[in-house]
């Protein structure tokens, strides 16, 4: 196997390919042209709606609880878990679970999100890749709580916030799981969450 490594690298090194420059993505000529929005939170909210998610702008966790209680999918959920203190009415304590297979019956998961991107409706979520990561994908329905101040206009601003120095897992989640693999008909709820609600919360939680 090391032989193949040397073989490939040697082959590539022997080539004389004209060198080209790597563009500086921070140069003002570029950054000044990236799209901006007068109200990024509203833009995020509209965009998320267009990709079949739901954004609710709220004051605090108390208001999250009120709005959750109004959600039909939440009302119908039996197995609920929450990683946000005092948020939702969890029926399952997931913190002690070490095998992600035990999450297979979770109906509704209330989870933290780091920040949102206005241009595409995505929310960045991250963790160490341990069992709790599975909750974002295996739960039937997902709600994310994100500080209202954490909405960036576009992906360039998003990557300014991201560091990958340590072992980690992270994903941009943009709306519920979906597919259009059968005759281009959009179906929500392919493998992952059947619904995604993002709460932009003003007060710290």
């Amino acid at each position, binding site marked *: 196997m090391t032989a193949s490594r040397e073989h*490939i690298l040697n082959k590539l090194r022997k080539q004389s390919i004209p060198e*080209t420059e790597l563009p500086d993505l921070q140069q003002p000529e570029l950054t000044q042209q990236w799209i901006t929005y007068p109200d990024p939170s509203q833009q995020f909210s509209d965009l998320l709606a267009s990709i079949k998610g739901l954004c609710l702008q709220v004051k605090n966790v108390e208001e999250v609880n009120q709005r959750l209680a109004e959600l039909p999918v939440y009302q119908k959920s039996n197995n609920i878990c929450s990683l946000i203190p005092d948020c939702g009415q969890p029926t399952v304590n997931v913190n002690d679970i070490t095998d992600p297979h035990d999450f*297979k019956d979770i109906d509704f998961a209330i989870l933290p999100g780091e920040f949102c991107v206005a241009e595409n409706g995505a929310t960045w979520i991250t963790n160490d890749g341990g069992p709790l990561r599975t909750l974002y994908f295996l739960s039937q329905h997902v709600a994310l709580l994100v500080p209202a101040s954490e909405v960036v206009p576009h992906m360039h601003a998003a990557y300014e916030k991201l560091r990958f120095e340590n072992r980690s897992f992270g994903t941009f989640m*943009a709306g519920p799981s979906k597919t259009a*693999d059968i005759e281009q*008909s959009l*179906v929500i709820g392919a493998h992952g969450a059947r619904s995604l609600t993002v709460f932009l919360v003003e007060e710290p939680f």
Partner: protein
Amino acid sequence: MPSHPKLADEFIKDKERAKWHDQSLWFVRSKRDKAVHQLPEWELLREQASKIKSYVVSHLPDLLEEFEKNAKAKGVHVHWARDAKEHNEIVHSILEKHQVKRVVKSKSMLTEECHLNPYLERHGIEIVDTDLGEWIVQLQDKPPSHIVMPAIHIKKEEIGELFHEKLGTEKGASDPQYLTESARQRLRQKFIEADAGITGVNFAIAETGGFVVCTNEGNADLGTSLNKLHIACMGIEKLIPRASDLSVFLRLLARSATGQPITTYSSHFHGPAPDSELHIVLLDNGRSEIADSDEFRRSLNCIRCGACMNTCPVYRRSGGYSYSNTVPGPIGSILGAAHDTKANSSLPFACSLCASCTDVCPVKIDLHHQLLTWRKEIRLKGLLPLSKRLSMKMMSWMMQAPRLYQFVGKMARKIVPYLPRFLVYNPFNAWGKQRELPDMPKQSFREWMKQNHDRK
């Protein structure tokens, strides 16, 4: 291997289906246009993407070593494979070491290129494609016909029939919602039972040693978070230098592919999860040869969005299988010809040189120029079929004799309008298949010139 025209003939026999296929893909192309127009800086983004990718190809060995070093530092096992055979052997040996019997795989054109599924099945390992479209074609025992929408060529009634037979869904049911739900239930079991997950790689980052996998269904995430072994398979050209380059590529990818602002899940893997193993297999399989070619190097810029096939008038009307190459359409014709020129010598001719592919390509590959260049190469290599060689010879002979050319033109204008249809529209006139010849003009351009200009 049967030529493109021959296989396309099969597809267009069913006129209704060919039309439906054309319209389905045009619908996706239109969605792409709508999404692109939301971003005033689109052209600027394309330019940056193209520059970044060109940089990658000109610095590939350094970037590969940088990636390997940083990935290893995060606890990732890095493997190198020269060709498909070695790739499959590496994947199999990892699975064997972990005594894996059941694997779930998210969409990866690279593993299609290597024919990994049949290889693993021969070794007694169950491998399930979890992307819905890919699973549908797997149940049919067929390859994907499109790189982003593998089952775009199949009608919902046929999927209903297939699911009825394989999954026991209701007979005659063809509602996409119902069929997708049945697939969800069945594949959830597969995710839960699996001992390992295989994914492709959309982008690997030299600077951080991590990589990104994009899906709409969440299947890559479910497939890798429920078990303790993740194998990611990537072509060496999938590298990008810096994490910040992702800002450019993730803005371009989904908009170009399906018209979405971003895929539902764009997952960044940096190191294995606790108590788990993460392996990455770097595959060459002819890519280094393409890198060495001045004419075709830029085809390595490809981020596999499928925009070129969605817009291609030939792909839309001939179907993905007519290319008999893992990647069909304009980019597939270039890569296919590079991989095995003889077997794929008809592919660069499956092109009207309309340049629409070049216009939509998010990384600015000069697709139609490369296809034209391939035609020249194929002629030089003596791989042109006799019909093309003969007709070219005759044309060249006639064009070099002005009087003969004038005479033939005159005769054609006089005679053709009076010929019975079977003499004009017969197997020797490939142009007249499925379309009418234009009416013969009353006079030639030369005659018109004489009348209107020479007098002045």
